[in-house]
């Protein structure tokens, strides 16, 4: 298994370059941070900036691992079951197991992909 970290350096300039300094809205990140707990009182200005980068790396790694699941299933469309499989297979994503399980409980039990018909977003 290739390490995602080996690629993140190559991509980070490209992603940021294409979408401006921050590809994710800082105000929204800050709001999510505030909602994470009532003991989160004050957030410094650089924290959402760091998170915007960390989230890009997170999305990159989870997408990459999910794509491996899709390929193993001989598919070219990424489904949410692929994300669930990637979460289950990766230690550092174990905090997401409950979240992906609740939306697709049968994905936890087996590798069978029942949802053959998916609406494809071609935008």
């Amino acid at each position, binding site marked *: 298994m290739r390490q995602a970290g080996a690629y*993140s350096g190559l991509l980070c300039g490209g992603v940021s370059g294409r979408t401006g300094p921050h590809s994710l809205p800082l105000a929204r990140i800050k709001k999510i941070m505030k909602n994470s707990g009532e*003991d989160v009182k*004050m957030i*410094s200005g650089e924290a959402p900036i760091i998170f915007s980068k*960390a989230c890009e*790396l997170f999305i990159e790694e989870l*997408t990459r691992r999910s794509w491996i699941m899709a390929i193993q299933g001989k598919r070219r469309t*990424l489904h949410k079951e692929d994300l669930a499989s990637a979460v289950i297979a990766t230690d550092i994503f174990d905090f997401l197991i409950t979240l*992906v399980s609740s939306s697709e409980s049968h994905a936890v039990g087996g590798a069978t992909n029942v949802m053959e018909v998916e609406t494809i977003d071609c935008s």
Partner: protein
Amino acid sequence: MEDSIGGSSSNDNNIIKEQDRLLPIANVGRLMKQILPQNAKISKEAKETMQECVSEFISFVTSEASEKCRKERRKTVNGDDICWALATLGFDDYAEPMRRKSRTKIQEASTNQNDLC
């Protein structure tokens, strides 16, 4: 978008809060697309699941950083706390690029750095 207080119906409030809970699906979808091969497609449900996962990631890391601040009796969660939390929770690969960024920022500000990142 600002939260409206008292002036909207509960439905409007719920819609606003629901939107605020997640990062925009367009931004998330674009980032996913940039990582995959050209002929790959992404279902809408996969994008929605990724939105949820990213928000959970932010909350998870923020909670860890916030707990550290509480123990050290500080009120403000800063960039170093986020970097520390990322490394603590196993996202070392993410913390490293942040480390360089954080140090550059610190040098510009001419303040002391405790090498937390």
